């Protein structure tokens, strides 16, 4: 696969390591009432869609950017690549 890095242009996927669902960026608030329930869901209940999936990749053999990549898990088509640090977080 080729990942079109927002800063560095197209790079081979072998330069990256994969983490998983980009929802990992939305870490719950530790002080919320049901924090342990929220953390359990955050950590263990992730989407695994057949189709478009937002996921985290790390440019380990490159500039060490964490990227949020929108990839179709059926075709590997990548429709969007963004820098994680520039994205809004929902939690």
């Amino acid at each position: 696969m080729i990942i079109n890095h927002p800063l560095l242009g197209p790079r081979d996927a072998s330069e990256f390591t994969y983490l998983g669902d980009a929802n990992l960026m939305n870490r719950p608030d530790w002080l919320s009432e049901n924090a342990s329930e929220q953390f359990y869901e955050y950590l263990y209940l992730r989407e695994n869609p057949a189709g478009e999936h937002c996921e985290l990749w790390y440019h380990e053999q490159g500039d060490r950017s964490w990227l949020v990549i929108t990839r179709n898990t059926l075709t590997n088509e990548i429709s969007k690549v963004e820098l994680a640090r520039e994205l809004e977080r929902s939690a």
Partner: protein
Amino acid sequence: MTQKNRIDGGLIDRNEPISFTFDGRQFEGYSGDTLASALLANGEKLVARSFKYHRPRGIFTAGSEEPNALVHLRRGAYLEPNTRATVAELYGGLEATSQNFRGSLKHDLMAVTDVFSPLLSAGFYYKTFMWPKAFWEKIYEPIIRSSAGLGRLSGEEDPDIYDKGYLHCDVLIIGAGPSGLSAALAAGRSGARVILCDEDFRFGGRLNAETFEVSGMSGTDWAMETIAELAAMDNVRLMPRTTIYGAYDHGTYGALERISDHLPTSGNKPRQVLWRIYSKRAVLCAGSTERPIAFGNNDRPGIMLAGAVRTYVNRWGAAPGKRVAIFTNNDDGWRTAHDLAAKGVEITAIIDSRECAPLSAPAGAAIIMGGQVVDTKGRHGITSITLANGQQIETDCLAVSGGWNPNVHLTCHQRGRPVWRENIAAFVPGGDIPTGMMVAGAASGELTLASALKQGHKTANSVVKDLGFKPSRKAVSKAEDEPVEVSAFWHVKASKSRAWLDLQNDVTVKDIKLAYQEGYRSVEHLKRYTTLGMATDQGKTSNIPALAIMAECTGKTIPETGTTIFRPPYTPIPISALAGRSRGKNFRPMRLTPSDKWAKEQGAVFIETGMWMRAQWFPREGESHWRESVNREVKQTRNSVGICDVTTLGKIDIQGRDAAEFLNRVYANPFLKLPIGKVRYGLMLREDGIVMDDGTTARLGENHYLMTTTTANAVSVFRHLEFCAQCLWPDLDVKMISATEQFAQFAVAGPNSRKLLQKIVDTKFDISNKAFPFMACGEITVCGGLPARLFRISFSGELAYEIAVPARYGDAMIRALMEAGEEYEVVAYGTEALGVMRIEKGHAAGNELNGQTTARDLGMERMVSKKKDCIGNVLSERPGLNREDGLSLVGFQPVDRKLELKAGAHFVAKGNPANTENDEGWMSSVAFSPIHGHSIGLGFIKRGHERLGEIVQAADPLRSRNIEVEIVSPHFIDPEGERLRV
């Protein structure tokens, strides 16, 4: 020996004869021959024995789809099994031997299996050899394995070099036949960067096998002219002997280039290169493959695909027979008759399964329309054929054509499905082919020459236009379209004898029918049950006819029956090529410590830790056992002073206004109040509450910290920190970089460590206990001005320091330290002594931080702050991780002090049987303690801290041991930590 079947013409160089041997016999061929064409020119028909029944087999095709003619090439460590003779280029001194027989190829003792063939039908080994059960592994399977099969391996390491490479292009053209050459011309003329690959050593594809004309010249001449034009273009790279074996995501293709397979030796060149080609677009011009018709005894040597017979005659001037018969269901078979007759080969008969008017035929050939071959005769080679009407025709070569299959393989590598096209009775590429790929020529189902040239031209022009290049105005080369009418005909129903579909795996029509009878419907199941389409040829000639027969059985159409999934590689790829240079000590990179050279001079024994080579111990003269060296290193360190290279520990430099806040969130224990010039132990959890890593972090300045990690987790911790900084808390002002390799770091441990260091550290820096107490750190200079960092931390439990200097001074530093320590009889110690001392001190390490243990298990639950947000603290409170009978880390010593403890033993309460139910924990680390004079261990046991003094069993059924051990404090030395603070 004479080349008795060599005839005029062909693309061989008769001025360059080449000698070679086959099964020890000497032959001669010409430059430009393949092993197959040279064998045919010499009249060798029998070249192999079949996989299961050991039937005599000959050359069947003229290309990479060959199912039969597999040979051993070369000898000794260079031996290469299962080489297809049809693609093995002849070179001087080539040695080939046939495979899969006992005795001799001609009188194979294993041919007896053919007599028992009724017992060996599809799935026979699922049905027979069932009893007694124990016989399977010991008797049946070894016999089956040794009697069935392909070639054998040399058993030696491959002495050749293999390499890998990366290429980029605008347009990759796969196949250099008429459509590929036409496409390359158009793309090359536009200025686009083009790569043109073909598996053959000679570009031209079928043009070299046919007698067609292009642009008023012979097809071969046109191909040569085109290649010359392409070779003159700087933007075009020509890659003969290169197979595109897989189509991967985003325009990436795998290619295997055979650099020196065609040479007697590879010299210093790589034998093969595995390329990864990044293309913006690809044009697949892979051509088509002829398929056979199944009839009785259709596997005898001399029965060949009609197109292949024509290829041998036209391209190689080798006649596969003197009196050739043709069995066809299409117009193309007739062309073989004409081409052979033109070269003076006698055509005895043309049998066409179609009930239609005959095409024009060479004089003297019997024409049988609506005819069928039901059987053949000839033990080691065909001698006659029998037709459905009973007529017998003598022949020494039967050319069979069942039509042509477009080579759709690469279009299906991303799960695309081909679609059926009735007019050519074959599958063509479907709509869901890989992004960026276009198909032209026969591969797309356009089986005629003029349309292949046109389509290649047109496709390339549209592709380059799409990429922003200006297509050239030059017109496409002209040719005629030849007749290619075909009427599907798969097998002769009237045949009573076995009719082969898959020659390579000995799968017959009957096997397919049997599989159907036994309930197999899915083609994927059919394939696995009958082994159809497996092994080196992957069913290139057999899959479609077999599908057709399955469709007949089920009453469905062929497209309804469907194909099996095509997966890479298109043709076999040697494991050596996939490995490339990553073999032996180059399997992965090796990292050397800054003191490596010095340690080697000392005769150190090394051990791999991750990618690092670390000194394990430093043997001295007179020491005959590693433990003697280790005991000495431990004792001398504890009594005086020892030095160890600890560069391999991860070092992460962390800076920024929010660095403290950041550390406070990634460590479980508090970090906000660490003063400048101090070091703190840090415990890092994963978000699930399990311990991830531990280490120390030093505060070097207002906003400047240096974290250390374990050697093993240096990479993963750094990745985790970047994740936290970028994905969780991007608002924090913090930046980090790995400094592991930038600093050489040495532990200086033992009661004399300060005295030793005072000789090295420049005098303006006071490192007395008062000025530089336990857990102090600072930036200093040593040896008269060299910047260094000093940390007063201890892993050994002794008064100890770690000193870091820029990595390039590491070698000088170890020498200076050892010299300064001479008066204290300083020792260098390796990872073994390091391990012994940390176990004596009760420090957890990799064996304890194994990804399953919590801070509570390690006795560090009080470190996990409940007053702040940090990774892992919420889930560390889960009830399951906080059970009353949870594990805790304690020490162990054998009741009988002479006994040795073993890591991996499991603890069972005294009196209980040693089984899983009674399992209470395990021994994680053991060492012989030279201080105590006996074996000691660390381990996890339920409620361990409440059970000090209790005797339990350390059961080790794997090593048939069970000894009594006493639970003790994990701190075997200096439990109060006084030594650290003196």
